[in-house]
């Protein structure tokens, strides 16, 4: 680092004395490790990365481009340069990478140092997409899901689930979701049928995950807390992404993703799903699963949906089931081209498995898979887990 660079960079914090590692006096550069100047990031999170690079092979965008810049380690290097002041706040590469990242958090599962990438990405986007800087569409989406009356009224048209029978605060509360109740109302109807005594009040808002992942983590937190008041007790959700967000703010014990809930409460099917084979004889339905990234990587729920599917059908594991499908919340709308690049190899794989259904546990993934398979005129159908379970109940 030269004198020029030092002048440009604000004074760094006293974490480590970089000069101690200088090989040539004056030539000091720790890659902004430990430099805390702008207060954009929780620096304890930022410091934890040891830059080993173990995250590279599991990152979907690194797999596409083989480019350090589009890897979790590269992005953390960029975040450090932003925090230290070495890069301008509106540097085009920072802008690009903050939105190119899917936020799937697969990197966290292989990180030896326990880096929490998810919260750092939220802080990064809070800054990068601050007022007037983020994608316009993201702002519009945030606005839309805040309209509680609109969400409630969508029930008139889309017939999402209603509470049946007597309920109390102690009843499990089914979360309707913002997008899901309008897009896939049959999902919440199936969920309420599967959860005995469930309450599904129409007066509930969006959980705020969309805010948190799109540059407004404070708004996301407030919405999760409001949802916690709307839905007392256990919140049962059919959306892996919402489950992880709500658990982060209300606590893990307040939230049960539906497969987690059903396995814990010992749900048993009436029988196995059968279909007619090419030879005209009955055969078990063959299914595969697409994990929800935040459910798997954020909450550690991955065995439960598989366990349920094995009880009702012939289960086939897709080799890339655990990696992101490209939906990534609002990513498929904000970056449709990249979203399709991530999805394409997965659809090739699904079509080669010889399954009847590919099962999703999150509405975003469901929509992504449905649209992708439809565009290919594939014989494979995408369904939500509960839509299959209800048929076997």
């Amino acid at each position, binding site marked *: 680092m030269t004198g020029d*660079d030092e002048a440009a960079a604000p004074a760094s914090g006293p974490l480590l004395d970089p000069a101690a590692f200088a090989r040539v006096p004056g030539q000091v550069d720790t890659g902004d490790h430990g430099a805390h100047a702008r207060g954009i990031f929780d620096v304890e999170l930022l410091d934890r990365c040891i830059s080993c690079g173990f995250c590279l*092979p599991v990152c979907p965008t690194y797999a596409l481009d083989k480019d350090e810049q589009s890897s979790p380690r590269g992005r953390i290097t960029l975040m450090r340069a932003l925090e230290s002041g070495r890069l301008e706040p509106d*540097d085009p590469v920072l802008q690009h990478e903050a939105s190119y990242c899917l936020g799937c958090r697969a990197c966290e599962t292989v990180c030896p140092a326990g880096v929490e990438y998810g919260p750092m990405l939220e802080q990064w986007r809070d800054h990068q997409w601050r007022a007037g800087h983020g994608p316009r569409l993201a702002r519009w989406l945030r606005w839309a899901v805040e309209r509680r009356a609109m969400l409630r009224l969508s029930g008139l048209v889309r017939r999402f689930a209603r509470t049946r029978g007597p309920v109390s605060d102690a009843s499990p509360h089914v979360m309707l979701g913002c997008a899901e109740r309008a897009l896939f109302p049959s999902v919440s109807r199936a969920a309420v049928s599967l959860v005995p005594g469930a309450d599904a009040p129409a007066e509930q808002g969006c959980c705020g995950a969309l805010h948190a992942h799109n540059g407004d983590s404070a708004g996301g937190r407030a919405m999760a807390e409001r949802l916690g008041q709307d839905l007392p007790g256990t919140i049962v959700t059919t959306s892996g992404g919402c489950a992880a967000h709500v658990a982060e703010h209300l606590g893990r014990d307040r939230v049960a993703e539906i497969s987690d809930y059903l396995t814990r409460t010992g749900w048993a099917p009436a029988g196995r799903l059968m279909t007619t084979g090419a030879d005209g004889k009955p055969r078990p339905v063959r299914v595969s699963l697409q994990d929800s990234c935040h459910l798997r990587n954020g909450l550690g729920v991955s065995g439960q949906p598989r366990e349920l599917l094995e009880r009702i059908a012939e289960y086939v594991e897709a080799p890339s089931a655990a990696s992101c499908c490209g939906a990534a919340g609002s990513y498929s709308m904000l970056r449709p081209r990249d979203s399709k690049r991530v999805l394409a190899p997965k659809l090739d794989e699904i079509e080669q498995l010889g399954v009847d259904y590919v099962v999703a546990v999150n509405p975003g993934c469901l929509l992504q898979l449905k649209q992708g398979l439809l565009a290919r005129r594939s014989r494979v159908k995408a369904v939500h887990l509960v839509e299959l379970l209800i048929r076997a109940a």
Partner: protein
Amino acid sequence: MALSVKAPTELRLPVPGDGPRAAVRGSDSVRRMDAPGWGMVDDGVVARLRAIVGAEHVKVDDGAVAAFARDATPLYAARPDVVVLPGSTEEVAAVMRLATSERLPVVPRGAGSNLSAATLADAGGIVVVLTRLDRIVEVDGDELLAVVQTGVTTSALASAAAARGLLYVPDPGSKTVSTVGGNVATCAGGLRGLKYGVTRNYVLGLEAVLATGEVVRTGGRLWKDVAGYDLTRLLTGSEGTLAVITEVTVALVPMPPATGTGVAYFASLADAGRAVARIIADGVVPATLEFLDRKCINAVEDFAGLGLDRDAGALLLFGDDGASDLVEQNLSRMARSCEKEGATGVTMAREVAESEALLAARRCALPALARLAPVTVLEDVGVPRPRIAEMVDRIDAIAARHGVTVATFGHAGDGNLHPTAVLDPADEDAAARTKAVIGDIFDAAIELGGTITGEHGVGAAKLPWLPARLGAEQMALLSRIKTAFDPAGVLNPGKTGSVFEPGDDGEVGR
């Protein structure tokens, strides 16, 4: 010779003139190097690079080059001026011709997972990223070899070999991310050193681009071949200072049908050290022989809760592979050898799942230590096998003297130790003390007849200590070899082989 280079305060850059390069922003938005002797990465050079590899594979933006400022080495970073991602050997050759004619530093880079700042662009210039060269050319089960492009990951090669019932032996800890080219460039090691050797033992041939742009093919598909100097071995471990490796032919072995693992606890590392000697004296050359010291055992137990014996002074993990009856026999023999040397407890795993559980103790060592503090400095020294316990004692004494937390684990079979310092950010001069610890550890290793690096490489991080290991005559010879390969000195400057001069205070710099 008695060289002591503890504090590399007076180092010279490997270029005419003194001091670091002056990196300034040019009006053309490309940073320039004004250091005497080096050419300049200006618009013309960038345009020529774009013509060679395609515009989308050349990066000059501030943010884009910032992402390539570092590898896996803590506390070392330097931004290149331009990053290129060539897609073929011919493109690499064209980039090298341009670099030599314009005298621009070139740093070849695979996945950037090395731990010695070997891919640090500390003279700026061009970083050549080889990850796009990721084709597995062939796996030949009859010839027992594979040919891969340089950017194929070690795991991808191992999987391709396994699909044919074959084993690619070298298994560095970073195998899921590291590239085969990078493994060859650093002569990566792993857990199988004693019985099977390291990367150099499995490289049959290389395709490499010289600094001047010629493409050479060394070795080939032959196990016996003494035609000329062994350039394959010379390039293996040369850390990108002599040539850019673009394709590798590796030897494979049949997949061993069975593996087995056991764990023994000892009251002290000295006991474990004697057990290692006893195992080998009793006639077993184990595939696995790893140790953890008490601090590692406790860190792993805190992290993973595997039920390890926290009171033990050392844990020895032993294992073998081969025909199942032989594996069984060797495991029993190793367990007896440990008991003879006073093991306080021995656990055997004969099933794969049990083996995995035992191996987890070793695999978690780094993650467990990395969670103790924000900065983890993973070091790498080697001593003759019988002196491991003595070396660990010395490491503990050095760490205590400087007030730094250092835990040690490593490969007991081949004498390769990984003292790992964890730095507490609240500690003001932790970095300075850690550096002093590292210097003292290197001195101790050399005193015991060992080395400053067993498998991580020299890179920029350890170059100051290289003269102490090799002596002035060898250092000079390395420079002459370097000059023969790279007359303009453009390949990975500031690393092994770069011109060195005695410093003002009589110490040897580089």
